[in-house]
């Protein structure tokens, strides 16, 4: 990023816009917008169509029309889906698991991120590498040992087991992200707090946590999504309906020979609703984090 105070120094896109003004023919501009518009439609149409379909009856899904008539809209699908006790249980389980995982990962991640950012100890760099590489490995690699471990700890088929599994997957990324954000907080602030007699823990509580809030939001967002969306670990660790989570809720509306598409899609919309809500809340910081170089290293 250019840092000069030259008034000419506008951002890159404006610069290029100005530069293109003279040789940007209307035809080419239309071409550019057309391509982007098509891509936009390609990305959003399936989601919009799905949400629309969840408010219509089964017959709309199998009619050749692409847009339902206003009079056909109904909440019947939502009533049917939400009236199923097992679906509601899955929903509560998902909420409990995702919330506990997020809290656990944030607590551990803030402590570990703080230590990596503020202390200097041998092996710190190696630790960072070790954390980052776990993020890249497919989870199936540790599925068998993990299952055997959980089995011997008697944690198979319990929500606690699922929370632990999700935390193990979530902690490295959470720590990594939080370390980046804590690095951005000037160390002089914690020095000042220590002068006033704060211990490490109260520096954390009074200085670091309030200032790292955007980072905490992003790490929390990623962790919640990871736990909410997980299917693999739950499919192995949960063996009865009492511990299933929402991704299994979709299966309730499928059987060998008949799929209730309208109910299935409604269940899918309910499953993705919290993610979209969280996304809307956290997106500002998420994009900021991505734009400043993906994962913040130093």
């Amino acid at each position, binding site marked *: 990023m250019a840092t000069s105070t030259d008034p000419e120094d506008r951002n890159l896109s404006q610069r290029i816009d100005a530069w293109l003004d003279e040789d940007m023919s209307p035809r080419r501009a239309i071409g*550019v917008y057309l391509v982007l518009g098509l891509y936009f439609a390609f*990305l959003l149409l399936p989601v919009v169509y799905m949400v629309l379909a969840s408010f219509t009856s089964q017959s709309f899904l199998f009619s050749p029309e692409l847009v339902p008539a206003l009079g056909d809209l109904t909440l019947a699908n939502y009533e049917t889906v939400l009236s199923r006790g097992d679906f509601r249980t899955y929903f509560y389980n998902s909420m409990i698991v995702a919330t506990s995982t997020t809290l656990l990962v944030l607590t551990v991640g803030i402590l570990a991120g703080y230590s990596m950012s503020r202390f200097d100890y041998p092996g710190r760099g190696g630790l960072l590498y070790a*954390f980052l590489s776990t993020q890249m490995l497919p989870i199936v*690699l540790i599925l068998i040992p993990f299952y055997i471990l959980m089995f011997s700890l008697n944690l198979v088929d319990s929500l606690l087991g699922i929370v632990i599994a999700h935390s193990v997957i979530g902690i490295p990324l959470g720590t990594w992200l939080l370390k980046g954000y804590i690095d951005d907080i000037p160390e002089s602030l914690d020095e000042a707090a220590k002068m006033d007699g704060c211990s490490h823990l109260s520096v954390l509580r009074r200085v670091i946590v309030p200032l790292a809030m955007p980072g905490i939001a992003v790490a929390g967002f990623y962790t919640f999504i990871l736990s909410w969306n997980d299917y693999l670990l739950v499919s192995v660790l949960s063996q009865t309906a009492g511990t299933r989570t929402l991704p299994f809720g*979709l299966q309730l509306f499928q059987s060998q020979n008949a799929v209730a598409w309208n109910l299935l899609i409604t269940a899918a919309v309910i499953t993705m609703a919290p993610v979209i809500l969280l996304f809307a809340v956290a997106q500002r910081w998420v994009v900021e984090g991505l734009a400043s170089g993906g994962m913040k290293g130093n």
Partner: protein
Amino acid sequence: MESSQDAVAGAGTGEHAVEDRRARLRRFWKSDFVRSAPYWGIPLLLMGLAVYGGIIWNILISLTDYQGFLERPDYGNLDLEMYRQALSDSAVHLTARNTFVLLVAFTSVSLVLGLFLAVLLDRDIREKSKVQTIYLLPMALSFVVTAQFWLWMYNYNDGLVNTVIGLFGLGPYNWIGNPSLVLGAVIFALIWQFSGYTMVVFLAGLQSISNDQFEAARVDGASIFKTYWRVIIPQLKSSSVSAAVVLMIFALKIFTFLYAMFGTYRPPKGTDVLATLMVREAFQLQKWAYSASIATILLAMSLLVIAPYLYYQYREGAL
């Protein structure tokens, strides 16, 4: 320095030596290493045991011939028998090939598409941040949800895909039922989900390139296309590397998508990958050791992706 002088000076009498050791111990206790240990100890322990311990344990299991239910693996008798079996198993060949095709096709198409769109977007469009955000949305959606609605979109009779290509007089195709189309259909769905992410990463890279270079190329009379092709895109190396690695990692995690799409550990042959084969052998047939050896093969493939990336990051001093 001082401590070594102390040590030399105090070497004569035992009392001094003890005191010196105490001082060193006290210094050790006050060092950053010890004082910070409670903070990083927990995640290290969790991750070390679960992930790295898990990987080693997995390799160990793959050397036994553990199968069936509820008996312990016999670690006394380790050999490479499972790997011999795996390497001559045609299912392993097929799934390894599918994994590889998926990895390469998905990653390269997403990269090219993302780069193309980022260049277009970099050149114009207002309210950039809003656009970026929406492009990221599909990535946040669960594989379970996206798998379901793509299954529905690919529906032979009434799916949106066949409806849309029908407008152009094509199809209908049986996307899911036809073994030679299904892998392509899965890859297309994945591209839908992740190309927006690639675009945002490239866009961030493009925005960090100084305006002077555009000016300079313009003064030299280069066309827009040539400016991007010759000057700008070569500078996106680090964005490309990190985007490619993230995409490949997602491709290696494809299991959830396939499992959700087909509702079973056995997806159609055309799109069976190493991960589904491995989970099937383990949790359906209880062939633990055999599937652990398949997991090790998958680990080797993952390391082929990860190790060069980490080395690259390390050399660039990015960590």
